[in-house]
């Protein structure tokens, strides 16, 4: 095996065998799966449990008109609010809804008595049901024909058609945004997390004083590159494990909790929580999302994600290695760490602006400059990027990481041999141009 290969192997194996790696590999997917499963589980669980609300209606109008919702059952009581409140104290029901005598054109004084703070879900359910009854009353009073009203109701959904390359493709802004965000954030976190690992590894070798033994056997550049590649492989392995486990745990949990076959009823309920769409519209929405996912160019996104992911890692990884070589301890490294992380943070900060105008000049320049391009370009790609821009950005990224690796190599070869030196930027620059 080549010497660089040996170094990669060591960096990889020592990290993969660590307890923390194994724990993270197991814990990570459990957390991810929980993030996905728990909200769904909570929703379906809530739906099964209905709450009884006692209604005291002084208008004698709502009975029969006020519709129960998935989680609320209205129980009409005698016209005695004092009795109802007393029964509430005996915990006979969740709450008491008091509808005093009122003018339906100006409904006021409606109260919900409960012995605890009612949930958003309950409040919204009650308000919606009451609103519907009063709305119906007003429509009738105004003498509007229901059929005409239905015809007047405008339900508009604009389909976006992407006509680049002469082909017509349906696209969805929502799905593109989601894909862009996930890809950008993944790159950001990966670089930060594993970049710091590289830095720590270099500092460890320096403070262990083993580095001089190693570089009497291999070139400093080989050691640096081996470390960067080895740690990158650890990161990819972790991602792969997470992806596989998350899928397994997610599908397993859903099967166990019995929420895999969400029937239309439940979907409708979930839909109602956010809007008053009917079952048919909800289904249509779900279909649209699936259709939209189908329309984005998945192979292109996967390819560019992998490309920017690796390019960004190599670009920043070598900078982190250089920082590590110039420091004796983690705290020494902090002063240099900030300037390296700032471009990353800026890229995340501008994502919102890029999203507003994915083809604007800010988005363009940020997705061309190598320090920002990985995060920003991944946000743009789902919206479609002209080929020449993509090629230019990728080309510059390759040039960028060759440059930073070269630069880092020059700082590294001097830095790892320096102990106890107070390093500042001037000294770093001197190392950069020093002969070997």
């Amino acid at each position, binding site marked *: 095996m080549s*010497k660089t290969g040996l170094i990669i192997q060591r960096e990889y194996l*020592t990290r993969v065998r660590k307890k923390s790696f194994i724990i993270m590999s197991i814990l990570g997917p459990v957390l991810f799966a929980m993030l996905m499963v728990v909200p769904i589980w909570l929703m379906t669980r809530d739906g099964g449990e209905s709450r009884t609300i006692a209604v005291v209606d002084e208008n004698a109008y709502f009975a029969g008109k006020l519709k129960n919702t998935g989680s609320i059952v209205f129980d009409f009581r005698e016209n005695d609010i004092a009795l109802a409140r007393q029964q509430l104290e005996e915990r006979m029901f969740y709450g008491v809804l008091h509808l005093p005598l009122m003018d339906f054109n100006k409904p006021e004084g409606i109260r919900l008595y409960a012995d605890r703070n009612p949930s958003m879900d309950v409040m919204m359910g009650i308000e919606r049901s009451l609103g519907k009854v009063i709305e119906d009353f007003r429509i009738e009073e105004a003498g509007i024909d229901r059929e005409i009203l239905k015809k007047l109701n405008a339900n508009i959904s604009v389909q976006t058609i992407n006509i680049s390359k002469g082909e017509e493709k349906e696209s969805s802004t929502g799905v593109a945004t989601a894909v862009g965000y996930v890809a950008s954030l993944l790159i950001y976190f990966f670089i930060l997390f594993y970049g710091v690992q590289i830095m720590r590894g270099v500092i460890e070798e320096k403070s262990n004083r083993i580095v001089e*033994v190693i570089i009497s056997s291999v070139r400093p550049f080989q050691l640096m590159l081996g470390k960067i590649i080895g740690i990158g492989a650890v990161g990819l392995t972790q991602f792969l494990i997470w992806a596989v486990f998350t899928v397994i745990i997610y599908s397993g949990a859903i099967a166990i909790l019995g929420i895999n076959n969400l029937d239309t009823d439940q979907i409708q309920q979930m839909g109602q929580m956010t809007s008053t769409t009917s079952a048919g519209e909800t289904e249509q929405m779900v279909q649209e999302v699936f259709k939209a996912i189908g329309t984005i160019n998945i192979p292109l996104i996967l390819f560019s994600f992998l490309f920017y992911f690796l390019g960004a890692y190599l670009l920043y990884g070598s900078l982190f290695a250089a920082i590590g070589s110039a420091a004796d301890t983690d705290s020494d490294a902090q002063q240099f760490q900030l300037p390296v992380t700032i471009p990353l943070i800026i890229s995340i900060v501008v994502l919102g602006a890029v999203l507003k105008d994915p083809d604007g000049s800010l988005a363009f320049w940020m997705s061309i400059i190598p320090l920002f391009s990985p995060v920003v370009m991944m946000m743009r790609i789902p919206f479609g990027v002209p080929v020449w821009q993509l090629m230019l950005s990728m080309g510059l990224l390759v040039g960028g990481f060759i440059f930073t690796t070269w630069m880092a190599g020059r700082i590294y070869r001097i830095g790892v041999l320096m102990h106890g030196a107070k390093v500042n930027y001037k000294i770093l620059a001197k190392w950069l141009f020093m002969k070997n």
Partner: protein
Amino acid sequence: MNILVTKDLSKNYGDFLALDSVSLSIPEQSIFGLLGPNGAGKTTLIRIINQIIFADRGEVLFKGEKLSQKHISGIGYLPEERGLYKKMKVGEQLMYLGQLKGLSRKETNERIRYWFKRFDMTGWWEKKVEDLSKGMQQKVQFITTVLHDPKLIILDEPFSGFDPINANLIRDEIFELRRNGASVIFSTHRMETVEELCDHIALINKSKKILDGPKHEIKDAHKSHSFIIEYKGELEGTSDFFEVLHEAPGAFQGITKMEVKTSPQVRSTDLLKFFIDRVEIISFQERIPSMSEIFIRKVQGETNHE
């Protein structure tokens, strides 16, 4: 035959000249002492030989060939600032470092087992370095240096931090390695070590070589031609071929101790004859300068010249 020759090696760090035209010849199977005060340039020279850094001018020949990457497997290096991966197991660590020096997996494994047996370390393979005592770590460290059976072993202050038992063990191994054909460069400023082990030395001060050669020749060249004589009786008369530097008469049981200085032309036998004819000799000894004296004299002399 020389294992290593340097010719006019120079190295600058920015404006600072760390090595100034240093030429050395290190004979095969020698134990070569590289001496000099701190900051003289010893570590720079050693790093150039290890190809960690490169000289600005001059060249290094290893067994007559220009030094290159392929010679890495022929050199073993124990730096002054040394250490191991603390979290790694002893066996894995040695496997890694051995293979980095260019050994195959199988060879490395065999060599490790050989040294484990030799140093009474069987059963250490699975131990983590951080769980070992300092003395045990030092043994592991020494094995990393000699594992690949190098022809040239470079030890930078090898005994600093070694306990006396390990120091003795290492000393014996150094002689054994030389017997088997290796040459050793010692970089140190501990003169006892030099007296005891080295047969050749080079003295570096302020980036320049100021002295080198076989130890006995250097001592010869630096002797002051003074003798210490202990005798009983009264010494009468003087001679013009020596001068008395120091005299302590009858200090102990009537024995007088005298230090005399002669000129280089005077043979010690002539001096001895002079005394035998006049007094009863208890002891007669030429005063050979210690390496420490030569070191101090040369380094201070250099400083005074400026």
